[in-house]
């Protein structure tokens, strides 16, 4: 299994919508 690690997540806003069954990414939320 591939793993998207935390170095690659730096400065991305990562949103876990567990109820909605989805994961979101945004670059504006961390600036």
């Amino acid at each position, binding site marked *: *299994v591939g793993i998207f*690690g935390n170095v*690659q997540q730096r*400065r991305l*806003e990562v949103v*876990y919508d567990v109820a909605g069954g989805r*994961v*979101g*990414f945004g670059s504006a939320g961390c600036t």
Partner: protein
Amino acid sequence: PRELESEHLTHMHTLDVSSLIPSTTCSPSTKGSNKRASLTVVDKHGPCSQLNHDKVKAPTMTEILEQDQSRVNSIHARLSKKLGLNGFHASKATTIPAKSGSTIGSGNYVVTIGLGTPKRDLTLMFDTGSDLTWTQCKPCLKSCYQQKEPTFDPSKSSTYSNISCSSSVCSKLSSATGNSPRCSSSTCVYAIQYGDQSFSVGFFSKEKLTLTSKDVFNNFLFGCGENNQGLFSGAAGLLGLGRDPLSLIQQTGTKYNRVFSYCLPSTSSATGHLTFGKTASSSGAIKFTPLSKLTEGTSFYGLDILGITVGGKKLSIATSVFSNAGAVIDSGTVITRLPPDAYSALKAAFKVAMKSYPLTSGYSLLDTCYDLSKYKTVSIPKISFSFSGNVNVDLDVSGIILVPKISQVCLAFAGNSEDDS
């Protein structure tokens, strides 16, 4: 020439080499700190961390990467077991013994929460790859590792109580920890072990949890650890953010609708945030990809990777390379692992884009490194990932390279050892 220059700017990050050296002073971000239910995220060993003091020795980057491999092996093993895969070869896993005062997959980030009445502040590693929240507890009946903050003492809290063995929530520990609960004098006992053989065993309990002054949860179920050993490096325990019913996300689901988000800082001297509930920014500019069916029934967050672009060019990788392997997103794994064919293609394209710079020896599990000590500025190709749902994610430059030192700047990716992992 103008068109070439424009293309270069579009597809390359150009930066001062001096900016690659991490600062030794903390530069906190104000973003997120005033949001509702938002906790400040810091690198456990950076200058912003309260754990960054002489009491606990910080690991070297080599140690961090070695421990990262044990976490990856653990995730592979847990998923293979849950998914009933036959191809997993347990004998290939690397087991690194837990060492007191070292870390668990130590690229981990920490947040500070409050527990008990009166409230005690505890700094916990947050982890989307596990479910049970636990902290070390007095009287540490068997053993406790050294932690920075005073150990939580349940006898001094008016809101603490143990869970009895006959309680229905006691049986929920099996899925949350992978181990059946035990019973001691009719008190429910949990046990959880991690990929590096670190573990925590103790009383399954409930207590008042304070995230912020306006975000207080009575009867939060957690582990009060009486026997804790391993790689936790001064943190008081672990905050489980997986999908299991016992995770913090499910226990606070009524208030936050099972939505949380985080921003990890780009360097160890910056801060990020961990926010519970939907925020303005967690709806507008966010692109969502559905959770992969591969991880249904597990506590992991699965993603479907469709492709990778390097320096503006999409890599020629068959989609089956990604779909055969599957993928998860994990806050505790440091370096992204890719199927071997995908990593080979990524490495080759990165090398082409970096051909002006001298290659140097590899660093731990990173095999593509450059000596940039003779340069003032450097151009690094942009990398983006495509996920299902038409989601393209451009990585920050801090998510492309890892910098042990300026004479050894490395592509921050690694390949798995087998195509189906």
